[in-house]
């Protein structure tokens, strides 16, 4: 990836950007108003650990993919 003149390409997102999920929002909102950025980053790190674990668990347990792909 480069920000050089020749290589630069802009590719935009496809539409509205996804909103931050509720768990993350609540975690950050719980912080005191005068919390410094280090505390915010720390909270995000904690959320990320849970988020990855949750995503992996859901991958294993999702029930909706019952139909086989067959055409």
């Amino acid at each position, binding site marked *: *990836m*480069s*920000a*050089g*003149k020749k290589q*630069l*390409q*802009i*590719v*935009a*997102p*496809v*539409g*509205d*950007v*996804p*909103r*931050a*999920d509720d768990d*993350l*929002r609540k975690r*950050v909102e719980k912080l005191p108003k005068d919390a*410094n*950025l*280090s505390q*915010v*980053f*720390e909270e*995000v*790190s904690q*959320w*990320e*650990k849970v*988020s*990855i674990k949750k*995503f992996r668990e*859901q*991958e294993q347990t*999702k029930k*909706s*993919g*019952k*139909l*086989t*792909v*067959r*055409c």
Partner: protein
Amino acid sequence: MPFDLDLHPYLKRVLDRTYNHEIILKSLLHGAYDSNWLKEYELFYNKQTKSNPYVTRVLFKFKEKRGKSAGFSHIRPVTDGSELSETYLVPPKNLCAANDVYIKCLDEFDAYGERVECTPYIMPETIFGMCIHASIWICLKILEKRAMVERSLSIPEIQNLARGSPYADREGLLFKQAARILRMGRASSFYVINVESPRLTDMQMLMELYAYVESRLPVIIGVDIADLPWWRTDKHGYHSLVTIGHTMEENRTNGFVFHDESLLPYVTMKNDKLLKAWHIPTTQPPSRYVREMLVAVPPEVVLPFHSAYQQFEKILSVFQEKGVTSEKVENLVIRPFLKGGSELFIETRNLSLLRALKEAQFPSHVWAFFLYDQNADRKDEKSLRGFFVRDATARTDLRFFFFMDEKKAIYQVEEGKVYTLHEGAKKRKII
């Protein structure tokens, strides 16, 4: 031996509909080797008298005088209906950046002595596999080229890994099984579905698809054939496509490019048509579409796009509240990449950025979001407003923001310490 195209309806359809006859026959090679067909031959077709272990290699070139080579397709000598075995054809000319079409999974393949810049393609024999098997075959070929899997597999080998027998007998696979096969090839994989928490909206699913495709990773999605324009059918059926690129209009990604293993390579579909087709077929109209997608990522990568994106967005909003930056996410367009840390190259003369980058030491794989002005001129590099980088392996605490206008880096390289560094500042400051 003359080559009668009318005897090969599948190849004819590809030439008619994908290429609109812009490529023509260059030469033929009878008795060519094809590793996928050889497996199919050994396991089944050697019992048939009309069969033989070799394919016909049909080489193409562009129609114009002294037209460039366009690659080749292998025709199976005997088939149950899907005659194209390993196929390495360049994209049609109209699918190019000048027309705002970006085929991100293009690579230069050295296949059977021919060098072709393409995305490999195959049609499955239903004895050994269905569309999903062919989708996996295409993904593995792309990933093998990028050293992300140990080796690619033939379709019977894919079926054997999935079910313990090389014979599929018209049985497809679940997305979960496909994910396992990708993992067995030593890639990692993300299986994303929109039905469980976090419930992803249509736009979020499109954004997920876009993020991985933009990272040059092929993505398998499940669609209903009744909603695919090129199928021209009312019959419902669950079908897989491999997403290999995207299209754009006025700085917005407005569609995607696919390989459809059952019908045509290099087909495009706009977002509205894609959203209509991207669901599991049901007899009743679903109140909410179930959308599945599967992508293989390097084995070290554990952070899916939406987790990287959500933290980017949340931190950016905190920056706004605290007056750290004036950039607003709603005014930006974002180009996400999953990249090797060493591939991330930022051309700059900004000393504060250079100092910060040196300290950050990007890990093996990162999510990098490049931020642009929403009304940016695509050719103007000044429209780059900044970037965000997060360690995609989640092994380090690296999070790195940079804002161009303010010439300011805000970054974390170790837990609990967030630094800011301005242009001209002598020292970084903990914030």
